[in-house]
């Protein structure tokens, strides 16, 4: 079972404007959540049983509070990850966060020309490739994240080879969802059933190719495998059990850039949000959310029903946030 994580999107500020960005981040997005609010949230999340802090964005290497948040998480015994677009792998950005970072997740969307096209930057791949030297110098463990689209499953094994050669520990394959900027910039690019099945076989083939040097993980599951999902099993929890630590009821917990905490994934329906950390602290928000936990599990059960009717390989987070 996945270790419960708090995923923080502190800002939508980014140096790139990627075509598939689910949060529609970019250079002109300047708002950011206050560091003191986020530090408090990390402490409260640790109290609620969350064991991982994942920083995302926007580009978290551009958020001035990232180093402090990672330190705070380590102080509370959480492990830490940070997801970057890979164009800022330079001492100025990496050194401040390196000491308290357990895994750097770098996005790589295919062969160089595909990556540059998706990142809307002519040198995105070259910056990533050369920046890996700095990642190695700092001794940072890192993984790559590949977004599977309707058009790029043929590039997956190349990415796996690159990842293994570069010394990555993990290659995560995540299917594109038609949300955020992808809806307008990449219409009809979310992988259909056929591309998902090819994604599955190519992920297995990639694992066979690289062996134990690299772990290849595909964020797709069969419907029956989804049946073991924690939030579906929790549908049977009596209200007397809803006082458990929040991490046992809802993980991942995702902080969106406007301060709203939502269950499971960015873009989750707002009527089931946990709360707004700019207005109240997590313990108060969580207490109120627990009292209507049944609404959340009922929503998950409905989503599972839809997945059962659709069949095939399913991205649970996409299904449950639809």
């Amino acid at each position: 079972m996945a270790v419960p994580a708090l995923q923080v999107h502190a800002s939508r500020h980014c140096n790139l404007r990627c075509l598939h960005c689910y949060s529609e981040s970019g250079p002109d997005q300047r708002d950011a959540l206050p560091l003191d609010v986020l530090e408090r949230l990390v402490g409260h999340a640790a109290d609620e049983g969350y064991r991982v802090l994942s920083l995302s964005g926007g580009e978290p290497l551009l958020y001035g509070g990232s180093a402090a948040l990672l330190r705070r998480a380590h102080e509370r015994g959480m492990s830490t990850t940070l997801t970057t677009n890979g164009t800022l792998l330079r001492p100025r950005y990496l050194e401040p966060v390196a000491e308290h970072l357990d895994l750097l997740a770098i996005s790589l969307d295919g062969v160089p020309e595909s990556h540059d096209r998706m990142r809307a930057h002519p040198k995105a791949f070259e910056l990533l490739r050369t920046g890996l030297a700095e990642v190695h110098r700092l001794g940072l463990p890192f993984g790559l994240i590949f977004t599977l689209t309707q058009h790029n499953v043929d590039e997956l094994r190349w990415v796996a080879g690159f990842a293994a050669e570069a010394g990555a520990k993990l290659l995560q394959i995540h299917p594109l969802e038609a949300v955020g900027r992808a809806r307008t910039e990449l219409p009809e690019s979310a992988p259909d059933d056929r591309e998902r099945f090819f994604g599955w076989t190519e992920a297995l083939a990639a694992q066979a190719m690289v062996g134990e040097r690299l772990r290849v993980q595909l964020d797709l599951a069969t419907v029956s495998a989804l049946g073991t999902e924690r939030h579906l099993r929790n549908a049977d929890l009596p209200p007397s059990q809803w006082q458990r630590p929040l991490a046992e009821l809802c993980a991942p917990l995702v902080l969106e850039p406007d301060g709203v905490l939502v269950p499971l994934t960015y873009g989750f329906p707002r009527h089931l949000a946990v709360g707004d950390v700019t207005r109240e602290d997590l313990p108060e928000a969580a207490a109120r959310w627990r009292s209507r936990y049944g609404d959340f599990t009922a929503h998950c059960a409905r989503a599972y029903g839809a997945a059962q009717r659709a069949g095939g390989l399913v991205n649970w987070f996409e299904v449950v946030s639809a």
Partner: protein
Amino acid sequence: MAKSKNAKASPDTRGSEKLIRRSLEEPVVSLDKEDFERFIALVEQDGIELVDWTTKGIPVPDVLHGVLQVRPEAAQLVLEHFVKANKWYWHDWFPLGIIDPDRFLVSFGNHYELH
């Protein structure tokens, strides 16, 4: 770093289609006796069944095309065999079973000018 093979492919083409096209461009590779022996050992594994096949080659067969029926738990084994030998292509994994596939029909062959 290896040069990518699909630099000129249209970004609008399905990835799976490009994958299949690429496999058809692979150089012809004949199978030898050891390849056939390893393949027979593969189809004797649990969850893997050879349901249709054609061999070609005179006097000794050096080409094999066919269809495997593979259970999901054996898929890794099949793909490991294909990838490590570097002589095989596969152009479809057709799922059987509603709603959850419990078997796949896998069309496969060694790289050969037939296709």
